[in-house]
């Protein structure tokens, strides 16, 4: 059972390849916690950003001009500013203005660093998703929408049952791209000390000084995480395919 840690200890002593996370239980648990944080942070942000994208794309066709302007403003703001700037802005500038909760002396801010990371990344990727879904919606032939309307669908009904299902299939490849980018963007949470993968790796290499080894571990980890996401998305694309329908 101890063969694996023994092997990595030997690898360090004999060849100077120090993968401390394999034999030091403290480093190992830190790394696994980082991996877990990255995975669930990614999943939560992916779901929230898709929700924002769907809602935003629908509101873009709203009757009221004010609503359309608000959506356009949101997309412009979050698409035109760097995610790292948004993140530090939320955490250090906005976070300090919020009320504190809890008993005096132990009060904590309403939203902690993980909360801000989720909010910031979801809004950032959501802005892109709005535009991605818009491109899908605009690719749905207007004749199809008119046919739905003549069958008595309301605007929301036609959107939910006719436009969105078609638009979604058209948007999937570019959505896929954006979500891969979102997973990689989660490394920025490192700047506000969210214990994700990059943070865990940086903790380990600044104490054990195995920068080169940890960099490789990091790259391999992200290839794996993104690989799983891409696989799931492709399966989804296949499952959603309508035989004979080519937009």
């Amino acid at each position: 059972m101890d063969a694996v840690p023994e092997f990595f200890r030997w690898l360090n002593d004999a060849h100077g390849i120090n993968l401390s996370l394999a034999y030091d239980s403290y480093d190992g648990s830190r790394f696994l916690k980082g991996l877990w944080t990255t995975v669930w942070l990614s999943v939560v942000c992916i779901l929230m950003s898709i929700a924002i994208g769907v809602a935003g794309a629908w509101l873009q066709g709203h009757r009221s001009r004010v609503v359309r302007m608000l959506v356009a403003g949101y997309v412009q703001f979050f698409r035109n500013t760097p995610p790292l700037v948004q993140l530090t802005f939320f955490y250090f500038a906005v976070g300090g203005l919020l009320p504190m909760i809890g008993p005096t002396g132990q009060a904590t801010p309403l939203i902690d660093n993980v909360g801000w990371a989720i909010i910031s990344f979801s809004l950032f990727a959501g802005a892109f998703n709005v535009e991605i879904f818009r491109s899908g919606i605009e690719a749905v032939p207007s004749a199809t929408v008119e046919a739905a309307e003549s069958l008595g669908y309301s605007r929301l009904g036609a959107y939910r049952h006719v436009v969105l299902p078609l638009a979604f299939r058209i948007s999937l490849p570019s959505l896929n791209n954006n979500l891969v980018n979102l997973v990689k963007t989660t490394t920025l949470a490192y700047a506000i000390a969210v214990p994700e993968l990059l943070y865990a790796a940086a903790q380990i290499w600044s104490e054990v000084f195995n920068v080169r080894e940890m960099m490789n571990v990091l790259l391999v980890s992200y290839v794996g995480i993104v690989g799983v996401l891409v696989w799931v998305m492709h399966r989804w694309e296949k499952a959603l395919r309508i035989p004979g329908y080519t937009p």
Partner: protein
Amino acid sequence: MTSRLVTLLAAAAMALAALPAKAQDTLAKIKDKGVIVVGVKNDYKPWGYLDPSGKIVGMEIDLAEDIAKRLNAKLEMIPVIAANRMEFLKQGRIDLIIATMGDTADRRKVIGMVEPNYYAGSTNVLAPKSAGLKGWADLKGKKVCAVQGAYYNRRVAQLYQPELVVFPAVPEALNALIGGNCVAFLFDNTLIESTLAGGDAKWAGYEMPLPNEDPQLWAIGMRLEDTDSAFGKFMKDVSTEWHKTGKLIELEKKWDIKQSPFLIETNSKMKGS
């Protein structure tokens, strides 16, 4: 067209091959160029920090200047943080580290440490008085801000099990402490003392509530291969002289640092020998 490409590639390959040839003695290199490059802190009052005009000043800067003067070289300072200073040194971007670096056995495997050490610090926390911390055990399960690469992070995390929230540099960590994102800030007692003594109204409600722990020597860092070279010997002599002449104690006073028993002890020991 292809032949031009081949020439270009060959030139590039030669340039790359020429790189490792820089394995020149550091002392000769410094004298040759007339410049010594030192990695220093710029966020660590009063050791190395920015004065209102934006210049880096502090006790460690005085030490770096003294070394440059003795070598008759120009001093070039590069701000470093705990997480990158040793990489900078190994890559040759800097010749020395004078950046509040603790002298640990693990680090000695990677870089050389100049002896005798020039200072000794301990670990403590900065916390709001309202947090009411009494002992180190009170930190258990609480969020404690810290700075990446500090040697005591691991020890404190394992011994007292706080939830460490580790930032890239001191200003972010202090900001998070003020923002209430953690109950305390884990750092060297010297920085905390000088922060509290600075008289900034921002820190009026804060204290250093715990007993100092884990005293640690600080050292100037140099490349491992320099340790036994002429440069290594030169640095050792300089450091010995600093202790003997009382220069370190003098500088400590100049920068308003609480007297360290380590310096007084070493000074009296060396004067006797």
